[in-house]
C-alpha cells in the first residue's frame, strides 16, 4: 500500500538582542552560569517585566517576511507548568492572540516550488538550562542565564509531504531569518530549535492520521533523519495492523532512532491566562508599513535576481543565496569579474572547502573579493593553471598576501614556453614507452597518464593545454 507523509514543524529561534525580552540582563552566549540573572528573570516576588521594544520589531519584521497578517492588538499570556528550568513556574508566551498568523514561505524542491503555510508567529521567553552531569548523581544543576532570552515561535501548517521537504523548509526559513538579521540560527548553540509533528495516511485520504511529536533533534540533518526513521516506524506499525499512539518521542542521535518519553512528562494542561504584569500593545499601521518598506531583499527574490542577472542555474543560485554572506561575497566579486559561472564554481568549490577545512564562516573571511577576482584573472590568462591557482588561494587566505606576491615568491608562474615544455615532454615519452604505445593503439586515456608525468616533472607549473597539444603532436610524429 502506498502512504502519504504529513509533516508540520515548530521552530523556536532566539532573537539577537543585547538584552533579554523582559529585563536588562545580557543575552551574551557562553557566560559563566547564573551571571546573567536578575530578580525579573528569576521570578522573585514583586518584580515587573517590561517588553524589550526590539524584540517586537524583530518579530513583526519576521512575520511580514513570512507573509503573515499582523494582529492589531497584542497581548501576552502565562503558560503554567512546573519544571526546574522555569523559575516562575510559568512562561510568558502568547496564546489565543498571537502577534501574527496565516503566512507562508516558498520552498524550491528541484524545479518545483511549493508554498508551506505558516500558522502563527509569536513571541515568548526562553527557559533555563538543566545540566544533568555533576558531582552529585542524584541532582540536576540549573543555569538561569538563558531564562528570558527572547524567542520567536514559528509554527507551520502540516503542509510538508516528505522529510526532504521539511529539510528544505528549515534551510529556507533559516536563510530568511539570517537575511533579516534577527537571529543567529545556530542549532549547535541552541539558538534555533525544531520540533516536528508527523503522521502518515493512505494516499488519497483527506483525514489526518494520528501524529507523533518528535523532539531533541540538534541539527537540520538530525530533523531529516528523525523524520525518515519515524515514517518507516509508522508504516511498519500500519502494515502490521497496529495502532499508532499519539505521543512525544525523543530523537537519539547516537542510536539514530526515536525513543518514547515518559507519558507523565507530556501530560500538560497549561491553564493559560492573560499576563497581568504586561500591558497590551497596539501597533499603528504606519509602524507596520515602515517595517515592511524597510525589509531587505529576501532569499527568494535574490535567487531570481541571481538567475537573471548572472545567468546562474537554480542549483548554483540556491547554494550561493543560502548563506547571505556567501551571496554578498559573490556579488562583490561579480563587480570586477564577469565570468559568473566560473566565479560561482570557485566560490562553491575551492573557497568553500577551504572555509570548511579551517572551520571559518564567510563573514569572518579576511580575503577581499577583489583579491579573489585578481587571482581568477591571472588563471584565465594562463599565467598559472587551475591546480596552482587553488594552492595560491589557500595561501592567500592563510597569509593575507596577494595572488601576485605569492606567485612571484614561490615562483609558480606557469611554464608556457614551448621549448621548455617540449624538452620535458620528450623525456616523458622516452621513459614511458608502454603508455605511449597504448595511446597509439587507440587508448585515449593513456595520454592523461603522460600528462600527469609532465606535470609532476614541471612541479605542477606546465600549461596543461600546451602539454596536451605537444604530447599529441610528438607521439604522432614519433
Amino acid at each position, binding site marked *: 500500500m502506498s502512504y502519504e507523509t504529513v509533516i508540520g514543524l515548530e521552530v523556536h529561534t532566539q532573537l539577537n538582542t543585547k538584552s533579554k525580552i523582559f529585563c536588562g540582563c545580557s543575552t551574551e552566549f557562553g557566560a559563566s552560569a547564573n551571571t546573567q540573572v536578575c530578580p525579573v528573570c528569576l521570578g522573585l516576588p514583586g518584580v515587573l517585566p517590561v517588553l524589550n521594544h526590539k524584540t517586537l520589531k524583530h518579530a513583526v519584521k519576521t512575520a511580514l517576511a513570512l507573509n503573515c497578517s499582523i494582529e492589531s492588538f497584542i497581548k501576552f499570556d502565562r503558560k503554567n507548568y512546573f519544571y526546574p528550568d522555569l523559575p516562575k513556574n510559568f512562561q510568558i508566551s502568547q496564546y489565543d492572540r498571537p502577534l501574527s498568523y496565516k503566512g507562508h514561505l516558498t520552498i524550491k524542491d528541484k524545479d518545483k516550488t511549493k508554498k508551506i503555510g505558516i500558522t502563527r508567529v509569536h513571541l515568548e521567553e526562553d527557559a533555563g538550562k*538543566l545540566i*544533568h552531569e555533576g558531582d552529585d548523581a542524584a*541532582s540536576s544543576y540549573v543555569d*538561569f542565564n538563558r531564562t528570558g532570552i527572547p524567542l520567536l515561535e514559528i509554527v507551520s501548517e502540516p503542509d510538508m509531504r516528505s522529510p526532504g521537504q521539511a529539510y528544505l523548509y528549515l534551510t529556507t526559513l533559516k536563510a530568511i531569518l539570517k537575511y533579516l538579521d534577527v537571529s543567529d540560527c545556530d542549532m549547535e548553540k541552541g539558538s534555533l530549535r525544531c520540533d516536528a509533528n508527523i503522521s502518515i495516511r493512505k494516499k488519497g485520504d483527506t483525514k489526518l492520521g494520528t501524529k507523533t511529536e518528535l523532539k531533541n533533534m540538534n541539527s537540520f540533518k538530525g530533523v531529516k533523519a528523525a523524520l525518515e526513521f519515524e515514517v518507516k516506524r509508522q508504516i511498519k506499525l500500519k502494515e502490521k495492523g497496529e495502532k499508532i499512539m499519539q505521543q512525544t518521542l525523543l530523537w537519539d542521535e547516537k542510536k539514530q532512532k526515536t525513543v518514547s518519553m515518559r507519558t507523565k512528562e507530556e501530560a500538560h494542561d497549561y491553564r493559560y491566562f492573560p499576563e497581568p504584569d504586561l500591558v497590551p500593545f497596539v501597533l499603528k499601521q504606519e509602524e507596520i508599513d515602515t517595517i515592511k518598506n524597510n525589509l531587505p531583499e529576501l532569499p527568494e527574490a535574490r535567487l531570481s535576481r541571481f538567475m537573471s542577472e548572472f545567468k546562474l542555474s537554480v542549483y548554483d543560485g540556491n547554494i550561493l543565496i543560502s548563506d547571505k554572506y556567501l551571496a554578498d561575497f559573490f556579488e562583490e566579486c561579480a563587480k570586477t569579474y564577469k565570468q559568473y559561472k566560473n566565479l560561482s564554481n570557485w566560490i562553491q568549490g575551492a573557497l568553500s572547502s577551504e572555509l570548511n577545512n579551517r572551520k571559518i564562516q564567510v563573514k569572518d573571511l579576511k580575503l577581499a573579493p577583489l583579491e579573489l577576482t585578481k587571482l581568477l584573472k591571472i588563471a584565465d590568462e594562463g599565467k598559472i593553471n587551475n591546480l596552482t591557482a587553488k594552492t595560491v588561494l589557500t595561501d592567500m587566505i592563510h597569509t593575507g598576501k596577494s595572488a601576485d606576491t605569492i606567485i612571484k615568491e614561490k615562483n609558480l608562474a606557469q611554464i608556457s614556453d614551448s621549448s621548455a615544455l617540449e624538452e620535458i615532454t620528450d623525456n616523458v615519452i622516452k621513459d614511458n614507452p608502454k603508455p605511449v604505445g597504448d595511446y597509439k593503439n587507440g587508448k585515449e586515456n593513456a595520454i592523461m597518464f603522460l600528462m600527469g608525468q609532465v606535470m609532476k616533472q614541471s612541479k605542477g607549473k606546465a600549461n596543461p593545454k600546451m602539454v596536451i597539444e605537444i604530447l599529441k603532436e610528438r607521439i604522432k610524429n614519433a
Partner: protein
Amino acid sequence: MSISREDVKYTANLARLELKDKELDILSKHLQDILDFIDKLKSVDIKEVAPTSHVLPIKNVYREDEVSRSLKTSDALKNAPSKDERFFKVPKVIE
C-alpha cells in the same frame, strides 16, 4: 456546571497541591460555589464587550534594548534551598 471530586484532585495536582480527604470535600464545595457564580455571570449579555486582558487603560510600555547590571551569582543563589558553587541544585529530573 458541576465539578467532581476527581476534577478537584486533578486541578490540585496541576498546582502540585496534596489534599487530604477532608480538604477535598471542603474545596470541592467552594469550587462548586465559584462555578455556580460564574454560571450566573454567564447570563449577562456581553456580546458587545471585548474580553478584558488588562484592567488599566495603558498600552505600549516598552524598554529599549540596553543591558543593565545583573545580580552577583552569590546573591542570585542566596535564597536557593540547595546550591552547588554557581548552580541551583534540584532533584534529578531525567531518567
